[in-house]
């Protein structure tokens, strides 16, 4: 019972974390850009203020509200499943459930802008789908390879090369799925006038932004949970290690986002494939050699 309560407490803390970590990221970016920047709690203040504002309905707003709500519920479920995995039971079925919920939440989030009848939102949504198709697919393969190797079904020194390659792929895919530069092409390209955000207002906007930030948290949590499950035992210690690691990783991703520019939709998939294909080839080769030796 204590473990279940612990999962609830850790999940609750993690639900507030994205709003504060985004504030931290803004502060770090501001420091790099020689600005003072807003206070760390600014994103939280913005969220609370937007929640208190009225919604300006638009054609299809009911459907969009449903999709945003669905995304948040799926993310929450994924978060609980992943916390259950690291705190209570190290079952790969639970890990895959958490991962599957995360990916479905990603798909739901990606689809939302396509339901908004506005050209800017549609173009933004289309761009996000294109990047997601390349990225999420690779993420699934990399998690599969890692799980297979860590599950002990492939044993060989070469396997570690495959594991390392798959881990690098997983971290890259987790970065891309956070929608930071250079992959913020769905909403940040200037001609889109905020793209996917264009029709959202008040609590709906707050909820959509919150879903995007939670996605960032989950995208970091997935690879870290996979690493930590191999190094720690279930219990309180893992989330105590996980939380600082998420903060550190959030800051690192924030710094990385500051020193690059934005790619273009016709360049993004090609650039990602150029990176992913060799990495995945190496991972799968390592895996196959491991299986052969086993």
């Amino acid at each position, binding site marked *: 019972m204590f473990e279940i309560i612990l999962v609830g407490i850790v999940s609750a803390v993690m639900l507030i974390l994205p709003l504060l970590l985004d504030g931290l990221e803004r502060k770090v970016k501001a420091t*790099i850009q020689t600005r003072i920047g807003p206070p760390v709690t600014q994103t939280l203040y913005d969220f609370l203020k937007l929640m208190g504002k009225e919604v300006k309905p638009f054609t299809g707003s009911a459907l969009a509200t449903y999709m945003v709500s669905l995304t948040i519920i799926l993310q929450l479920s994924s978060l609980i499943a992943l916390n259950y995995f690291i705190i209570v039971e190290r079952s790969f079925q639970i890990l895959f459930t958490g991962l599957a919920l995360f990916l479905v939440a990603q798909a739901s989030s990606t689809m939302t802008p396509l339901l908004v009848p506005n050209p800017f939102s549609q173009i933004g949504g289309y761009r996000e789908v294109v990047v997601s198709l390349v990225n999420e697919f690779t993420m699934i393969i990399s998690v599969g390879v890692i799980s297979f190797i860590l599950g002990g079904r492939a044993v060989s020194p070469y396997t570690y090369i495959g594991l390392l390659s798959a881990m690098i792929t997983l971290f890259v895919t987790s970065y891309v799925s956070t929608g930071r*530069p250079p992959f913020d092409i769905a909403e940040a390209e200037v*001609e889109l*006038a905020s793209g996917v955000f264009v029709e959202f207002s008040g609590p709906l906007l707050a909820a959509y932004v919150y879903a995007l930030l939670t996605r960032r948290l989950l995208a970091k949590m997935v690879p870290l949970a996979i690493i930590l499950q191999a190094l720690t035992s279930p219990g309180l210690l893992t989330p105590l290690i996980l939380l600082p690691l998420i903060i550190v990783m959030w800051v690192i991703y924030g710094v990385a986002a500051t020193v*690059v*520019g934005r*790619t273009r939709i*016709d360049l993004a998939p090609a650039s990602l494939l150029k990176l992913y294909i060799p990495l995945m080839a190496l991972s799968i080769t390592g895996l196959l050699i491991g299986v052969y030796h086993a």
Partner: protein
Amino acid sequence: MLRDPSIIDKYVKLAEFAGASITVDGDTIHIVSKPEHIPGLAEKLFNEFKCVHRTCVATDERPLNGFFSLTHLFTDDANGLYITLKTYLEGDKPRAPSIVDQVPAADWCEMEARDLVGIEFEGRSAYRLVLPPGWPSEVYPLRKDFQYDKRPNIIPVSEKVSVTEESSTVPVGPYHPALHEPEYFELYVEGERVVDVKYRGFHVHRGIEKLGESRMTYQQVNFLAERICGICGFEHSTCYALAVEKAAKLDVPERAQYIRSIILEVERLHSHLLWLGVAFHLVGYDAGFMHMWRIREKVMYLSEYLTGSRKTYGINLVGGVRKDINEEKKPKILETLETLEKEFKELVEVAVSVPQVKRRLTGTGVLPKEDAVKLGVEGPVARASGIDRDARRDLPYAAYKHVSFKVPVYTEGDNMARALVRVEETLESISMIKQLLDQIPKGPIRLEEFDIPPGRIGVQVVEAPRGGDIHFVITGEGKPYRWRVRAPTYNNIPALKVMLRDQPLADAPLTIASIDPCFSCTDRVVVVKEDGSVLKLNLTQGVKL
């Protein structure tokens, strides 16, 4: 400047051939011809003499001589000459032959002359360019019988977004995050590729020329001219002052000309640094944007140190300047410039090597030289497309003849070329300010007494950060009889159609920004309320919006 007499001779022969009269006045050749000979003469000037068509000016000269006039303004940059090609037009509904077939760059200025003065152009399609769609017909605001405070009844007309079956329409503007001023672009896209572009500008009607001609004095117009642009206002006030001084043949103290040149270059510095920051922002490289603007702050400090204002300095007068640069200021200026140069070089080196910045600037928004020449584009846009033209060198004014500098020219014509032209110009400007400070002569900074006789013409080009500003002045009694202003964006916007076509949609804002557009400089005083009524301008209290 000493010129080869054969250069003037060829213009004399050209005029004689067309039965036109010719007058040479300093660096300006005035050709007055019958209307029917204007297209032929314009063709010769543009295609054979390789003159640059800067703009045209329609003037209501009926109170003076009973005619309207149309003057095409060319510059022969290779020989440092201004050419005015003028014709007189009869009647209340004057007609003039169009020169668009011969000189495509004249398209907008002819339509502006039609809107504002009521000159009909033969041999071309006509459309309303400058005035709002609801402006009553046959009301021409720049005619002399139109009072500056007259309020015609404007019926607001809304314009619809064009929809085509072949492509999707992405509206950009009139209020859009990619544009910092009200303008409207319709981008027709297939997938993520722009296949065609429609531009609708002139949303801002400030009536600056009318104010300058009707209720301001020569010296007051300096301050109005500086408010044409929020970035390169000093170029406009200098251009106006130089045009009036040229018309009145005023010998302005050399120290004043040095001070003008120094401030002009300071303004170029902050404009280019601003633009580079915006370009980095548009490609998502916000670290570059913030650091570029941090460096720019030093220039703003320098502006305040030299003039008392960070922007809109208000130091230009006809006959000189109002503020001197003291000897004791020099060390601090030089120190600031040294730091600026060092930090700028470091930042540019890092920024242009960021992969996304490099890829998105290179090969996008290409403007071939041939189109650049036809459209008469200006400034860094022209120089990035292989046109070696810079008024500071070719039509020297102020103190530019006393400094050495390089004019950067690239042939690629893409966004990267335009960025690199501005980078090199920034470094050249730093060098020029140092040279000017070193050479600045002692003496007075303005003429105390002078006369400006009426009926004289002055034309001046000043190389602003975005290209050549041109001011044309016909002197009047205590104020300009006619004052025509043309900002460089006016000539650069038509090139966007070429630059945007067949380009990725995502690069459209960057390409639009690459001409460093100043839309309100380009636009032409009415403030129209939602109900269609017009707010009365009050020059002492301003306009409540």
